[in-house]
């Protein structure tokens, strides 16, 4: 058991192994994710019934909620990757953490934008300082901090470690931030409009939501793998396996990489 774990650990530390395995996995995630998204979105847009309060604008939920959930979990994943990297000095783990940052930030932006757009018809305003909204904004700022570290430090190894420290500290603080923002909002209670309470949703609205959430997670995996493989290629460009890989037909791999 222990030795098997150890072997797995060594494998995971190896860029070549990671490259090859994710090349295979990517295809599956891509296929499954696309099917889920397609069904979820078509169902949600065209077949699900309108909400009796919000009308058709509720269809934004199929983008908004997956993006929100995913951007939050992505931050945790980034921090865990950083922790693993720091503790066991595993370079692949740092790489994964590094590529998650921009993806997570893009999803946070998507959540904020779709939320703001949704807010206009429902609340009559683009933005309120509601607890959820505020903590999402702070999450985005946390992402920006991590990305800024990568931009500011040229030395790769140093940047990885520094960003790992920051994202770990940030993730320790996420519950504190979330709690304080929620608490603050209930205390002040001057924002007259609050995020709709989780509606006891009809299954024909709920199932497509589940589908798009799962679909987004699958695509997320594809994105992370693709960026990670790029980093590996660049880092290992001097090694023989990369040279060989490129020589026997990189054209094929470029085309089929997603």
């Amino acid at each position, binding site marked *: 058991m222990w030795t098997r774990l150890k072997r797995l650990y060594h494998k995971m530390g190896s860029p070549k192994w990671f490259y090859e395995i994710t090349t295979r996995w990517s295809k599956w995630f891509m296929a499954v994710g696309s099917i889920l998204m397609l069904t979820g979105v078509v169902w949600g847009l065209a077949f699900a019934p309108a909400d009796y309060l919000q009308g058709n604008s509720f269809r934004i939920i199929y983008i908004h909620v997956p993006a929100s959930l995913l951007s939050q979990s992505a931050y945790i994943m980034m921090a865990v990757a950083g922790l693993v990297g720091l503790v066991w000095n595993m370079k692949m783990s740092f790489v994964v953490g590094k590529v998650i940052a921009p993806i997570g930030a893009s999803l946070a932006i998507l959540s904020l934008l779709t939320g703001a757009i949704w807010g206009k018809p429902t609340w009559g305003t*683009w933005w309120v*300082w509601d607890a959820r909204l*505020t903590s999402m904004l702070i999450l985005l700022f946390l992402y920006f901090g991590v990305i*800024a570290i990568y931009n500011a430090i040229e030395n790769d190894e140093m940047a990885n470690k520094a960003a790992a420290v920051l994202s770990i500290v940030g993730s320790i603080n996420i519950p504190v931030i979330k709690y304080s923002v929620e608490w603050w909002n209930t205390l002040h209670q*001057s*924002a007259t409009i609050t995020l709709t309470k989780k509606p006891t949703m009809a299954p024909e609205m709920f199932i497509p939501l589940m589908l798009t959430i799962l679909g987004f997670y699958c695509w997320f995996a594809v994105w992370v793998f693709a960026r990670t493989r790029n980093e590996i290629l660049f880092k290992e460009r001097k090694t023989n396996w990369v040279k060989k890989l490129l020589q026997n037909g990189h054209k094929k791999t470029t085309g089929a990489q997603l």
Partner: protein
Amino acid sequence: MLMALLKRDLLLAFRSRGDLLNPLMFFMMVASLFPLAVSPDPQFLGTIAAGVIWVGALLATLLSLDLMFKSDYEDGSLEQMLLMPQPAMLMVLVKVLVHWLVAGLPLAFIAPLLGLMLGLPNGGFMPLVLSLLLATPILSLLGAIGAGLTVGLRKGGMLMPLLILPLYIPVLIFASSSVQAGVQGSDYLGHMAFLGAYLALTLVVAPVAAAAALRISLAR
């Protein structure tokens, strides 16, 4: 030589891309601290929005002033620039231009977004952007004097705000009240005219003063 300097400084700014965005980020963060610290009520926020945004812009510019001469001082480039066979004033102008492009101008573009988030009433957006466009160059120009005076100090970081905030105050007053005039639907042309005049004045005075400040700072 001045073109080369301009090119070099822009190159440096783009090379450290993070620095380009940081004043902006800071601006956004300061603006979003207020709802958290004061009250999230949109009605209420709307009344302080103009002031908050302008204070944020002031502080963001202030913090980015360090970039203007510091690193050139530390590695000896500034010495070299003062030894160029041209009036140091021109060199200062180039530096100010780059600082404005990098730290001032972007504020004018992002400000409407903050206006939205803080519930700024509709009439305020136009004067907000206009006042930022007119007044951020003033901030950079006056800032150059402060940056020049403090550049040689080992720990000048905190001194700068003290030196130049007082000079910034007219800008703050006229700019934020122009926005309030806009919100109330009244005319804000007078405010803009004042800002324009102040800009012209600083454009004449600041480069000379900043160049003198630099010479003093370097002749320890």
